[in-house]
């Protein structure tokens, strides 16, 4: 900016005083930026904003269900709220926040000056923001999507066969167009990650030396690239059904509603791993630093991530065990689901081995990382239970599954996101987050999440179906529902503490210095926050812990380990 000369795209006033161009104003700089760090921060801010939106939707759901015969929400509004809760959390919180961390951290970690395609990077962010606003704006028209985040046909068709009641209004259109916009954002982002990671690594950083977070972002990007087209195609077909008069999912003239389910879940299951793999990556960065040890079994963690990526494309029909597939097909999908649990177990054991005989520092980031292991284990165990097909017949579409996804996505991904934010916040801002408030937040989140989601296992066992807007008082579900609702508000307090801590630390946070954690990877080998160009000199990498090598040359990894 400052190096521009007058006459080159800069306006001067008659007095000769140079007036700022739009891109030099504070707002203009954010809007026009192509810097991966600013874009990363915008992803994070957008993601956390929608986290609050989705969280308020969750609190409405739990308020309605706190008591039997709840009257807080009408059934139509409830269906909109639970649909948008799932959609918001998955598409507008988890994916953007993970992309935000990836955008900010990956180029720094691999010693690059920016992403490979900076302008496409900005494009991806703005598509996300407008897609998100578009989707949430449906509430203004009282036509928010109401068919569930899975948008099953024929309920999402304009009319369903001979039914009088499907989705005649625009509710489903908001969802179908909105997810398509978000899909474009994700595709451009993923392409950018793949090219950046393959082409812009610092000298010496072989694939085999990349930080594990970078590995997992790479796998996530490939999953998005191969999974999203399936959703986009399905959405396109459904839009054609709804507005052009085709019959892809309409039985009356030879279409098939199951086609939607196959297309949706061949996106939807890889999607689940899209939401968790980067979390695995963050945990694999944070545990070693606060255990003062390298990650245990780097190769196994990296390649088990790749294995999960491949296998995730073979398990989609485990969402469909109740649709009447042939027994042989069900046995196949039970087997593939069993297989995908193995690499997941391998990761957990490697994390435990990483902290074993370490020197554990209980920073808030580490607390959340350890909490992640404890909670994700539950999400893994009840997930493996769902692969037991006959048991699944009983608990699929019951609250047991709600418990499962929340142990994976809240106990797993959200805990990792909190860990990641406490870990990298000093890099983003140059300031430390308040550890004391952070510890309070951790305990509110940890207790709140178990009080909310553990009873849901039992509700499922007790026969409570999902997605019901209310329930009668004589089913034996009242106390457990009340417990879950109380837990949800405890979680809400935890999130408020988190937001307060961010704002407060931005204003009053202690100066962090460039490397507050004595960390191992390259993003800490530059100023906090980093300059536009990231590194004065591009570092040369000789092992998996380049910054450790630089700080401790006598005991550098490359002297003792060959990789």
């Amino acid at each position: 900016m400052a190096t521009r000369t007058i006459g080159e795209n800069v306006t001067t006033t008659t007095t000769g005083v140079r007036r700022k161009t739009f891109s030099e104003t504070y707002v203009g700089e954010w809007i026009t930026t192509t810097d991966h760090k600013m874009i990363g921060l915008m992803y994070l801010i957008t993601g956390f904003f929608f986290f609050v939106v989705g969280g308020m939707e969750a609190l409405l759901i739990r308020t309605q269900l706190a008591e039997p015969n709840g009257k807080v929400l009408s059934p139509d509004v409830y269906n909109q709220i639970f649909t948008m809760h799932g959609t918001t959390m998955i598409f507008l919180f988890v994916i953007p926040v993970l992309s935000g961390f990836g955008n900010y951290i990956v180029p720094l970690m691999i010693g690059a000056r920016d992403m490979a395609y900076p302008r496409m990077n900005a494009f991806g962010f703005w598509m996300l923001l407008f897609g998100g606003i578009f989707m949430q704006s449906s509430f203004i028209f009282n036509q928010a999507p109401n068919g569930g985040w899975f948008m099953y046909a024929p309920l999402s068709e304009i009319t369903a066969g001979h039914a009088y009641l499907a989705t005649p209004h625009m509710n489903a259109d908001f969802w179908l167009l909105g997810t398509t916009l978000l899909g474009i954002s994700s595709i451009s982002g993923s392409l950018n990650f793949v090219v950046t990671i393959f082409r812009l690594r610092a000298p010496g950083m072989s694939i085999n030396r990349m930080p594990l977070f970078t590995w997992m972002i790479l796998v996530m990007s490939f999953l998005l690239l191969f999974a999203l087209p399936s959703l986009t195609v399905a959405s396109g077909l459904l839009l054609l059904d709804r507005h052009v008069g085709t019959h892809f999912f309409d039985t009356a003239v030879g279409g098939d509603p199951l086609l939607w389910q196959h297309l949706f879940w061949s996106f939807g299951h890889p999607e689940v791993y899209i939401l968790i793999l980067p979390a695995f990556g963050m945990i694999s960065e944070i545990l070693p630093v606060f255990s003062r040890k390298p990650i245990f079994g780097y190769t196994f963690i990296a390649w088990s991530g790749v294995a999960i990526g491949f296998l995730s494309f073979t398990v989609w029909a485990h969402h469909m065990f109740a649709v009447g597939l042939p027994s042989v097909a069900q046995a196949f999908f039970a087997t593939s689901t069993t297989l995908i649990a193995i690499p997941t177990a391998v990761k957990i054991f490697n994390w435990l081995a990483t902290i074993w005989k370490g020197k554990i520092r209980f920073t808030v980031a580490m607390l959340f990382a350890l909490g992640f292991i404890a909670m994700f284990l539950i999400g893994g165990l009840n997930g493996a239970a769902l692969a037991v097909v006959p048991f699944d017949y009983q608990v699929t579409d019951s609250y047991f599954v709600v418990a499962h996804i929340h142990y994976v996505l809240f106990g797993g991904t959200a805990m990792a996101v909190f860990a990641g934010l406490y870990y990298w916040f000093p890099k983003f801002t140059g300031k430390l987050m308040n550890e004391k408030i952070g510890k309070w937040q951790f305990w509110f989140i940890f207790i709140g999440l178990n009080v909310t989601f553990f009873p849901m296992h039992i509700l499922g066992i007790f026969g409570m179906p999902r997605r019901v807007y209310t329930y009668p008082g004589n089913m034996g579900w009242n106390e457990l529902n009340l417990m879950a609702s109380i837990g949800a508000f405890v979680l809400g307090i935890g999130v408020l503490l988190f937001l307060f801590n961010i704002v407060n630390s931005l204003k009053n946070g202690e100066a962090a210095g460039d490397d507050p954690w004595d960390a191992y990877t390259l993003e800490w080998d530059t100023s906090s926050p980093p300059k536009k160009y990231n590194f004065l000199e591009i570092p040369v990498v000789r092992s998996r812990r380049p910054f450790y090598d630089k700080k401790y040359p006598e005991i550098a990894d490359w002297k003792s380990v060959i990789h």
Partner: protein
Amino acid sequence: MRMPVFSRTKRWLALLGCVLLSSILLSACGDEASTSILNTAGPVAADEKVLFYVVVVLAAVIFLGVEGWLVYSIFRFRERPNTPNPYQNHGNLFLEALWTGIPTVVLFILLFFTIRGLLQVAPEAQPKDANTVTVEAVGHQWWWEFYYPKYNITTADTLVIPAHTTIHVDLFSNNVIHSFWVPNLTGKTDLIPGHDNTKWFIADKNGTYTGLCAEFCGTQHGNMRFEVKAVNTDSFQSWISTQQQTAAAPGNSLAQQGQAIFKNQCSTCHGIVGVDVTQFYNPQQFCNDSLGAGHNYPTTDVHCLIGPNLTHFGSRDLIAGGVLTNNSQACNPTDPNIMKDCHLAQWLNDPQGIKPGNDMNIGQLTTDQIRQLVAYLEGLK
């Protein structure tokens, strides 16, 4: 009044105990809810329950082992003053092989049970039983209709079956996807337009078991319940022969006036055999062609009904997808305060208030009309 408070506290404590120890003790908590999948009353649900226990035992062992390892590490290896820097261990191939191998073995043991259980409850495993009763379960938005092809009768909300007999269910929907679930008797199978899904189950003891729709099917998905009533074979046969009759004639003048209102205002959507339709008929046959619901076939008086067939309404336990019970003993048609306790009267007075969004969009009835309709409908035993 101390006792209820005490028992309430006890109930909370019991539930809290279940939450804390559920992985081991869930069987003891199964009685808390009538629809618990652990209160099994038949072989299909029992086979599914066995797998639940297999899963719980394996998961509990893994859970305790791994969480124990984690918690031990957290306490044992926390940083203390003068802790030396740890040994920089990058990995160990033997350990990796070990903890790849052990989960693989455990998971494949689980897979063995999975596939064995799968084959036990699959449609192909249905026992060859000469007495098998076939029913057609039809999912509507948002209530269940049951048709017995062999006996040619139609009923709604309550599926009456003989105990100790194989029940074969054909699952049919002409609208959106629903899912048939009776937790005490069998897990779920979806009703998908265009797909001929079937399932089977057996009730081992007489009793009433709640069924629920388990696939999100629109506004009132939450109020789409039914009940399965298992009775002994004799009672079943006598129930069948009652149901095969045409509707009872109105017993008094109130009921006669009620019948007149029915013919006038209700018969567009509802059928009563002997009043506005001449016979029972298979809903699948008349609701699965392009003419659509509500269409009248010119040559017969049968058509695809929008609402439940009410021929023997008075013999049913539930109203409108289980949103209310049919408490006929509280329904005295001569009582001017009938709306106070009689659920049918409440339903007729305000169906959209009780179950918003349902198809029963009727004009406001007067109290007299409601009393007449109650007198008529509750008399249809």
